[in-house]
């Protein structure tokens, strides 16, 4: 493409609005404008220059800040819709989502579910929105940062008159002599300006790096979004829940059978008015019980040596740790979090075998409800066989006994009692609070004799190798956003033109600040305070 040579001798890329070096306008039609549009230094942006091929069109679409803003606005509106009703992951798992929304929220809930809003944030169109924002970030930044960088690098001290005149802050003053210029220069240096001089003309500049802030923070966002995508790579992310009973030792999922966890004890503390801070008394009176601590005292174990499947592994103790909310147990890339619990789950149940007619006791048995033994030998020729065991007993649709789960919520048993009178045995069915006696002519009965319970703790097993990328992206974003927000790029031009001194100034933001700074600068000099020309422009 054609390059444009300015009268100052600098060769500008095609599409430049005003000369990168001296600031002279390159296009005729721009001459009429009162103030220069200083955004991106009038540099030649690809999107403003080419619009022929499909690539150009796609590039131009995504390079528009307007499009970017629309994407942001659409995304934020869509996000708001997702908070009207709870997302699927927050509804109780008592019934399927398809029924839950209609059941709880009526027709509105049904519609919400049918539109897929119950899983809005992982819907394809929401992901497309986020991806588009990502693309927009990259293209917007590239379209601007490269030409801006070049233009700022190539700027000269001496600027074209038309450039100075069209700055927002501009003023003419009586001519300064060399000493006075030197004086101003010293003042500028004191204000931490980087001052360049050329033929008695000054360019004072500071905070240019703040111009890169937006691009730095966009890079941070891209890294962040990239980090979020890493989760889809197998092995990067683990999200499992481990329910573990007191006294139990279980393999920790996703560790390839290498790590085991033993739950020694689960503790639930509540605030106690007697012992805890008196200041809490009033609140406790009002709301009642408040939980103080959820804690699992666990032992982390590691397998030693190789084992063949089915063999009991040798376990080596790594560490003991009390897992609390906000204090996960960390090892390698894993972390175990306290997330849920169940108090007093049945663990053992004991029964007494008695003779029906005399109530004579013939011995006790205790059944481990998690791993029940099959046979219990009692003395004097008595023994009990456990024929069937239903940990979570219910009747199925055919009125047959069945179990809803393997958790002993409602255990039921079928016993075969072997006695000297009945060496073949007699069957009996026992469930909580109901002894269904199948045979009227049974001589013996199993009667309930007590229970033992224990607590169960639920721990989330988490591995997230994407965290570092995400944290790094967040850090870069913060650096960029601070760089761009808390510093300003200020430039002051002081030029000797035709027996007068011209002052022009530009800042990318905080005009109040630069005007105040110029006020201090010219205080005690011959210079008159420059005008803010934007005020005049508005009036016209």
């Amino acid at each position, binding site marked *: 493409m054609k390059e444009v040579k300015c009268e100052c001798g600098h060769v500008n890329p095609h599409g430049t609005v005003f000369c990168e070096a001296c600031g002279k306008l390159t296009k005729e039609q721009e001459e009429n404008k009162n103030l220069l549009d200083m955004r991106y230094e009038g540099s030649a942006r690809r999107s403003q220059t080419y619009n022929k091929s499909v690539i150009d069109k796609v590039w131009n679409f995504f390079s528009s800040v307007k499009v970017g803003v629309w994407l*942001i*606005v659409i995304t934020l509106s869509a996000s*708001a819709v997702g908070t009207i009703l*709870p997302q699927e992951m927050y509804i109780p798992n008592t019934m399927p989502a398809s029924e839950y929304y209609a059941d709880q929220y*009526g027709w509105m809930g049904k519609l919400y579910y049918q539109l897929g809003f119950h899983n809005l944030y992982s819907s394809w169109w929401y992901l497309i929105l986020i991806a588009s924002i990502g693309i927009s970030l990259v293209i917007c930044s590239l379209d601007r940062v490269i030409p801006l960088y070049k233009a700022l690098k190539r700027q000269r001290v001496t600027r074209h008159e038309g450039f100075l005149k069209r700055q927002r802050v501009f003023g003419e003053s009586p001519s300064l002599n060399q000493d006075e210029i030197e004086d101003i220069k010293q003042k500028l240096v004191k204000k931490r300006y980087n001052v360049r001089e050329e033929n008695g003309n000054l360019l004072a500049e500071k905070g240019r790096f703040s111009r890169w802030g937006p691009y730095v923070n966009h890079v941070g966002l891209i890294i962040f979004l990239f980090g979020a995508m890493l989760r889809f790579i197998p092995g990067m992310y683990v999200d499992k829940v481990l329910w573990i009973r007191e006294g139990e030792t279980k393999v920790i999922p996703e560790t390839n059978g290498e790590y085991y966890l033993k739950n020694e004890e689960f503790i639930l503390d509540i605030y106690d008015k007697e012992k805890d801070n008196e*200041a809490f008394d009033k609140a406790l009176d009002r709301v009642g019980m408040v939980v103080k601590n959820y804690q699992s005292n666990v032992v982390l174990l590691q397998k030693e040596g190789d084992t063949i499947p089915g063999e009991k592994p040798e376990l080596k103790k790594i560490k003991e740790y009390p897992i609390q909310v*906000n204090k996960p147990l960390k090892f390698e890339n894993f972390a175990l979090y306290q997330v849920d619990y169940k108090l007093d789950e049945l663990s053992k149940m004991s029964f007494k075998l008695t003779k029906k007619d005399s109530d004579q006791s013939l011995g006790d048995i205790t059944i481990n409800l998690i791993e029940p033994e099959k046979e219990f030998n009692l003395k004097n020729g008595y023994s009990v066989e456990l024929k069937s065991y239903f940990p979570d007993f219910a009747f199925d649709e055919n009125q047959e006994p069945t179990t809803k789960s393997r958790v002993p919520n409602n255990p039921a048993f079928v016993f075969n009692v072997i006695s000297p009178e009945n060496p073949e045995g007699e069957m009996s069915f026992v469930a909580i609070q109901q002894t269904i006696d199948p045979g009227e002519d049974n001589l013996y009965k199993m009667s309930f004799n007590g229970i033992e319970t224990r607590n169960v703790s639920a721990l989330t097993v988490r591995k997230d190798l994407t965290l570092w990328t995400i944290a790094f992206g967040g850090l870069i974003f*913060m650096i960029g956003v601070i760089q761009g927000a808390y510093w300003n790029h200020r430039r002051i031009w002081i030029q000797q033109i035709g027996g007068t001194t011209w002052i022009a100034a530009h800042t990318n933001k905080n005009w109040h600040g630069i005007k105040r700074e110029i006020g201090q600068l010219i205080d005690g000099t011959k210079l008159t305070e420059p005008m803010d020309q934007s005020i005049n422009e508005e009036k016209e």
Partner: protein
Amino acid sequence: MVTLSSNLLYIAFILYLIATLFFGGAIKAKKSVGEKQSTNAWGKIAIILTVIGFISQVGYFITRWIAAGHAPVSNLFEFTTFFGMALVGAFIVIYFIYKTPLLGLFTLPVAILVIAYASMFPREISPLIPALQSDWLHIHVTTAALGEAILAISFAAGLIYLVKFVDQTKSSKRTLWLEIVFFGLVTTLGFVITASTFSALDYQAEFTWVDKAGKEVATEYTMPALVGPHKGELLTEGAFKPLIETPAIINAKKLNTVIWSFASGIVLYFLLRLILRKRIAASLQPLVKNINLDLVDEISYRSVLIGFPVFTLGALIFAMIWAQIAWTRFWGWDPKEVWALITWLFYAAFLHLRLSKGWHGEKSAWLAVIGFVIIMFNLVAVNLVIAGLHSYAG
């Protein structure tokens, strides 16, 4: 310690009130409209009172922290009060940059309303549930509140801009929307007045009602029940009988409070209109006639610029770090998280629009107002209406 703490808060509240009057005086007294504005005696007294009030409120914060053993930002009262304090703090900083008493006249009443609103919630010191027992409680919550407070300054500046800019000689969409903004503020005042009146009268009405699951439960109203709960039965003798009954899905008690607030807001608003005989914005206009619109626009933009990084850090980054520690994941699409993201996206859009021509000045001021509405929605509605992990704060 607890009594000392609440007294300090009370003192701060009174001082803010008096300071507001002095800021008003500072504007009235300023006759000369010089470029170099020097603050007059009224203005000086006003800012000194504000600073003393702020110190007193910091005293409240510290003593309450000592008494509770944890940072007092753990429930809705504490958080909202802190937000009010941050608002005053942010105002003081901005005041020393721009020296505009007018900003005080608009910011302090908002801060006063915020603190008054806060005190309508249970004020006792509450023990921390396990999820809140972390240093991230004060790191995350204070930074987020501070960010929101700085962003709210842009609302005050935007409001000044609109009061001055919007043509009040004829009614238009703009005058309507501006009145709606003021009506919102008046309604908040209405809520505060109604709630404190009934609380002073010790009004109580007990109900039993039938909830969604068909279970009979008890509830206690602290305002006369205009709307009663589902199949509600009034137990307190002599208490006001509900006019309408709500379906079980609606929280009747909250709806009742909302209705009372709006009703008192409407009454208050019309009383004001009756006294002023013009729109609220129109009657405020003489106060702002000397302010430079460009300066207000710049204050508004700069508060967003200063507040945005603080908000990002507190409400998103610190929030994510803590969520990873307490809830096992840094992001979980909990409503409060989503609304923090919405607020962030909104201000990101605001900052991008400032790059475009034609989005300075009035449009920018409207955006600052909308931003504040989003922040308030996140503070009030998300905690009280949309249930989520953050609703312990209710």
